[in-house]
Each structure stands twice: as C-alpha cells, then as structure tokens.
C-alpha cells in the first residue's frame, strides 16, 4: 500500500485529495505511477499525460520521475509551487 496525496489545482480537477492504493506489479517509479494514474479517465489523463509539469514528493521530499516508489511511501503530486 502507498498513500497518494493531491494538492492545489490537482486536488480541484480530480476532486480528490488523498487515497490509499496497492502498488501494482511493475509500478516502481514516479514516472510509472503517473502513467498508471493517467489511465483513470480524462481529468487524470490531462494532468498525468506528461504535457503538464507535475511535481512529486515522496515522504515529504521533492523527487523526480526516476525516483523509486515502494510500499509504505507517502507520495504527493502537485503543480509547481507558488509561495513566497
């Protein structure tokens, strides 16, 4: 199981802020997880098809597409940050 969190524009578009999911066989990186999420429907595809910049964090640290995902991780997806 992993926990997946969505923030800001993603949370609004997906109407979804958090979920628990089984990590399917073959899904071992952020990039692979994005491909999986993109198959969930149009709103998901729009966000995760790679045309938009979506940032990811694992266990509260920014990561990139190649970073491995493993059971027990808290994965977060969000748009580029705009604080300050």
């Amino acid at each position: 199981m992993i926990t997946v969190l969505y923030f800001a524009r993603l949370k609004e578009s997906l109407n979804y802020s958090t979920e628990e999911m089984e990590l399917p066989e073959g899904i071992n990186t952020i990039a692979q997880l994005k491909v999986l999420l993109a198959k969930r429907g149009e709103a998901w595809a729009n966000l995760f098809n790679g045309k938009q910049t979506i940032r990811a964090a694992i266990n509260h640290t920014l990561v990139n597409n190649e970073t491995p995902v493993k059971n027990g991780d808290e994965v977060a997806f969000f748009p580029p940050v705009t604080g300050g």
Partner: protein
Amino acid sequence: MTVRVQIDDFDVGAELNAMRLSNLNIGAVVSFIGQVRDLNDGENVTAMNLEHYPSMTEKSLEGILAQAKKRWAIEDALIVHRVGELKPLDQIVLVLVASAHRKDAFAACEFMMDFLKTEAPFWKKEQTPSGERWVEAKDSDDQAKSRWQQ
C-alpha cells in the same frame, strides 16, 4: 534557526529585535518581507488563499535553511510563512538572516527566498473580479534559483 508556518500575521520589528539582540557577534541583519499586491499578471487581486502541504512544508523550509547555513557564515536565521486567506498589503513571508558581515546575510536571505519560491510546497489561489485562479509558477523564479547552482 527556526521556521514557522502560521495563519496569524507576524511582527517584523519584534522578530528583528529578538534576533539582533541575541548575539554580540551579529553585525548585519537582512530581512525580506513578501506581501500581497493588488495586481498580478494584469488583473486586480482582491484576496488570495494560500494552500500548503502541512507535513512537508516545515521540513522543506528547514532544508532550505540548512543549505544556507552550509554555504554562508550565519549567526541566526528565521523563516515565517503564512497560509490561509490573505488580502492586499497582508504580509505573506518573512526571511531574516543575521551574520557578522553583510555579504553573508544578503546572499543567504536571497538564496532562501529563491529556493522557497521554487521548492516549498505552497500554492496561491487568487480572487479577481473575473473569478478565482491558481497562480502560475514563473520561469523567472526558476532562473533565480539556478543562479545559485552554477
């Protein structure tokens, strides 16, 4: 060395005095305040909401502060960032750096703001006369950050 994320406003004068009076080796204190403008990307802004990722935000800011501490001789530093509803003229963020000499304080303060702008998990949603909109990240912020990585 402290970071705080809070809904309430902060008192810059009090923070500055507490820091600068704490240590006789401090010769320079640089502060940055970011505040809400009534105009962004050509549209009037009447209010904004600052969302964040609570369990990541403080860790991210502490990481930025730790990086600054490694690169420059800093006596003390503070980051305070607000979340929630804000209006034009409201303070958003305070970065304070104290050092023996001014060069370190200026560099570390600007470095922390450039990294906060591109790495800390905050998102602004603005209210304008034509509706709500999420603020778009700026290329100029990525460029500002990349200066420090050369």
